[in-house]
């Protein structure tokens, strides 16, 4: 105990002062030591009781000296001195004994004090422990009435301590849980069990329910009291909330896994956010296409119609980056809460927010590849605090939704691409086939089946292999790689192929190799186009060009031939006219004999006739070549025609001998008798003309298949090899050697050939210079004649 120095001095000095006073009084009074002794004893006792041992001994020693000193100083008797010494010894013994007693007494007092202090400390610690416990703790009697509670328990139940004391545990429990709790208490009361626990809901003062873990345990009776029950309450609100948050994230993940698109996934996700986290409404904002502002993509309203109005107003709003809660989260990319929702709502929404009674809002970003692609805004019509767990869960959810959107966009892009390709494949007017590595048909589109007029099965089995063979043949002709050999490079080839209906088409095949992920050819796409019309047009064009080219050549040739023709014709005409003009001039001038006039008239007539024939031939040929000549067809006996021609030629051909070798069974033909006579006469006349030295002309007829074959063979000059190919051309006359002087129009054989061909026959010639020529021609037999002949021959 703190004491001032003066008080310590007074206290310590006082016994010495008392001793000195006693000594002084004894000395003055000259009393015996025995008289003063009790006084000394009293001082020593007081000091021994009050002061420590050293002090007590010092005082006792001084008192002993004071008792001894007077007898010694007054030289009293030895007895007196001896008793004084005895008394001094008594004083010392008292001080010693009392000091010892006091020491014991003090030690036991200190021990008791320490024990009490320790008990107090334990009590304090226990109390502190009780109060600091995060669980609610209390003590109840066996009836369940609370006799002691800590603050936490009071806080959980939102009630004051005094109010709670005396209340039963069962009475605080929500009605549904009450029977359970009462049963638990009963069991503990009866001593059947020592501990009981359950999850129950308590009903605090504010009427809300608080989930708690309730733990009851029985404390056995002690000397000081009855058995009691320890009541332990654990507030599960936080844990419930943490569980909700975890469950919310897991629901979000589950929805994402099971949804195909963001529009399918978002409504249930927004619903889960509302129900699990206790928000009234949620909406997803996404940037416009030009990313200038955000608009509501989808919304979920978990509460009443009041929020409907606000959500509807949001649909018309378009906050820019940084504007309002959604715009701010868009800008910062961080979860953000709004304390003063009504004040801070986007200016377009402020009135609606007030009307809806919005109190709290929280928004989190949907992030994909580090970019905010959307913002989910959570709205509540009550004041609501937001903890870190919720914020971090929402941030996670935002990332996962972002990843999902990215995945689903990629997937839907793939789906679109796949759908596009499928549509192109199916709807293309060009035939497309997918071909495997061995050239087998994997798939054919409808256009290909349509072009090739085949069903898919036939196409696979035969149509496609046929087409490949056609391709390879065409490739072979063009010295190109076969179909499978050309894979890897885009190759185009036109092939001729028959359709299932037997129509022949020109097909253009374009093959493209489609590689797999490793770059190896995975399959081949073959595009098949029907280019028949193009090809035929180009073929016709080429034909026309060829014809035109040939026509130009022919025209040039014709030009030359025409000049030559004009030269020949004019020469022939003028030669004939020389006689006509000269002799008619002679006749005109008169003075001629009668015989002369007659002879000259004959010359004139012959030449005039010759001119006429030339003109007739030219006109005939012109008509035949231009197709304007008509035939008078009828049944013709070829042998009769041949005999007629010989009889006409013979009189003017005295130098040659005619022989005939006619098949008497030769059937009739259908033809123009006069024209056929013209043909034979012409050939016979030629035979005569080109046999200037005489010889034999042999005429024969026989059946050759369905034709009558007529041959006229002479033993005349023959035709030189370089001219034999041209004898049927107009104005071509053999004019070499001895044949030069043989007259002719140069049109005879041309006319002959025309007539034969008009009858459907052929004409040709064999010849050897110096040995003669053989002209052969055929005329088709009348159909019934041919049949009859076949029957006869059968």
């Amino acid at each position: 105990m703190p004491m001032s120095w003066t008080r310590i001095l007074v206290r310590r000095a006082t016994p010495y002062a008392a001793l000195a006073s006693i000594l002084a009084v004894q000395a003055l009074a000259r009393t015996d030591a025995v008289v003063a002794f009790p006084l000394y004893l009293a001082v020593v006792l007081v000091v021994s009781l009050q002061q420590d041992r050293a002090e007590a001994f010092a005082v006792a020693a001084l008192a002993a000296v004071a008792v001894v000193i007077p007898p010694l100083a007054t030289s009293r008797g030895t007895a007196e001195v001896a008793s004084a010494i005895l008394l001094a010894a008594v004083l010392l013994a008292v001080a010693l004994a009392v000091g010892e007693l006091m020491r014991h007494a003090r030690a036991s007092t200190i021990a008791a004090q320490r024990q009490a202090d320790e008990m107090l400390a334990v009590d304090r610690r226990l109390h502190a422990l009780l109060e600091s416990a995060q669980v609610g703790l209390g003590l109840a009697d066996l009836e369940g009435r609370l006799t002691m509670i800590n603050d936490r328990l009071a806080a959980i139940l939102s009630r004051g301590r005094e109010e709670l004391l005396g209340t039963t545990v069962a009475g605080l429990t929500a009605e549904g849980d009450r029977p359970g709790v009462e049963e638990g208490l009963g069991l503990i009361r009866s001593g059947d069990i020592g501990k009981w626990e359950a999850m129950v809901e308590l009903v605090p003062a504010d009427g809300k329910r608080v989930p708690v873990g309730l733990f009851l345990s029985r404390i056995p009776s002690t000397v000081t009291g009855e058995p009691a029950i320890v009541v332990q309450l654990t507030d599960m609100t936080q844990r419930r909330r943490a569980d909700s948050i975890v469950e919310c994230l897991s629901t979000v993940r589950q929805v994402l896994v099971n949804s195909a698109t963001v529009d399918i996934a978002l409504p249930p996700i927004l619903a889960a956010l509302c129900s699990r986290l206790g928000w009234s409404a949620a909406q997803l904002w996404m940037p416009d296409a030009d990313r200038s502002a955000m608009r509501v993509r989808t919304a979920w309203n978990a509460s009443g119609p009041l929020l409907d109005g606000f959500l509807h107003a949001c649909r018309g709003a378009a906050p820019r980056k940084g504007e309002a809660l959604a715009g701010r989260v868009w800008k910062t990319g961080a979860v953000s809460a709004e304390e003063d929702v009504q004040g801070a709502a986007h200016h377009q929404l402020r009135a609606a927010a007030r009307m809806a009674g919005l109190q709290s809002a929280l928004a989190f970003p949907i992030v994909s590849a580090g970019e905010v692609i959307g913002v989910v805004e959570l709205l509540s019509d009550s004041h609501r605090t937001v903890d870190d767990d919720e914020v971090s869960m929402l941030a996670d959810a935002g990332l996962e939704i972002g990843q999902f959107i990215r995945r689903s966009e990629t997937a839907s892009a793939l789906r679109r691409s796949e759908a596009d390709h499928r549509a192109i494949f199916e709807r293309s007017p060009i035939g497309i086939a997918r071909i495997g590595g061995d050239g087998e048909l994997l798939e054919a589109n409808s256009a290909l089946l349509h072009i090739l007029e085949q069903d898919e099965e036939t196409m696979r089995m035969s149509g496609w292999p046929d087409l490949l063979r056609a391709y390879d043949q065409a490739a072979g002709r063009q010295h190109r790689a076969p179909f499978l050999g050309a894979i890897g490079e885009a190759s185009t080839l036109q092939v001729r192929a028959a359709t299932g209906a037997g129509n022949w088409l020109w097909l253009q095949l374009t093959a493209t190799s489609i590689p797999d992920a490793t770059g190896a050819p995975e399959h081949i796409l073959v595009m098949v186009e029907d280019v028949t019309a193009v090809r035929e047009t180009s073929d016709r064009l080429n034909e026309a060009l060829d014809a035109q080219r040939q026509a130009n050549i022919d025209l040039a040739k014709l030009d030359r031939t025409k000049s030559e023709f004009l030269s020949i014709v004019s020469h022939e005409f003028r030669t004939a006219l020389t006689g006509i003009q000269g002799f008619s001039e002679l006749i005109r001038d008169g003075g001629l004999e009668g015989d002369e006039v007659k002879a000259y008239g004959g010359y004139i007539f012959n030449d005039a006739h010759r001119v006429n024939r030339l003109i007739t031939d030219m006109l005939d040929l012109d008509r035949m070549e231009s197709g304007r000549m008509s035939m008078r067809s009828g049944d013709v006996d070829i042998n009769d025609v041949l005999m007629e021609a010989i009889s006409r030629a013979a009189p003017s051909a005295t130098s040659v001998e005619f022989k005939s070798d006619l098949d008497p069974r030769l059937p009739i033909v259908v033809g123009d008798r006069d024209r056929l006579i013209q043909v034979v006469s012409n050939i016979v006349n030629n035979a005569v003309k080109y046999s200037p030295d005489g010889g034999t002309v042999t005429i024969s007829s026989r059946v050759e298949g369905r034709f009558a074959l007529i041959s006229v063979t002479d033993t005349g000059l023959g035709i030189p090899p370089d001219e034999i190919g041209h004898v049927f051309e107009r104005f071509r006359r053999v004019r070499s050697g001895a044949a030069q002087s043989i007259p002719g129009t140069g049109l005879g054989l041309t006319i002959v050939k025309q007539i034969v061909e008009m009858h459907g026959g052929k004409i040709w010639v064999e010849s050897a210079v110096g040995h003669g020529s053989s002209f052969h021609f055929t005329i088709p037999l009348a159909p019934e004649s041919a049949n009859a002949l076949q029957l006869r021959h059968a």
Partner: protein
Amino acid sequence: MPEATTGNGSAASKYTVLVADDNEVAQRLCKRVLEKAGYGVLIAGDGLQAVDIALRERPAMILMDVAMPGIDGLEAMKRIKAEVPAMPIVIASAHSMASDRERFLAAGADSVLSKPFRLADLVAMVQTLAGPK
């Protein structure tokens, strides 16, 4: 009527004309007209004959057709002129285009007579080249 003579016959050939033509009608016409005009007429039916007679008989002039068997009139003319350059030769042809005329003159013809011809033109040409009778 003078006759064609053999041997040197320069006198006999002075008024003799060789007609070389493969056309009998033309031969007869020329013979009739020229004999009427007082000339002797020799006839050749083809080119080789014409050369042969011309070199042997040395007529005063030759009336030569072109289109004849064997060698044609132009070839015959070339051969005759090679032997007797001064021999007057008239090409009488039914090839009577302008280009033909140029062709014949270039080949060495003294004159060209186109068929058909007026009888007076024939006589005048012969008189010019063989001398008037």
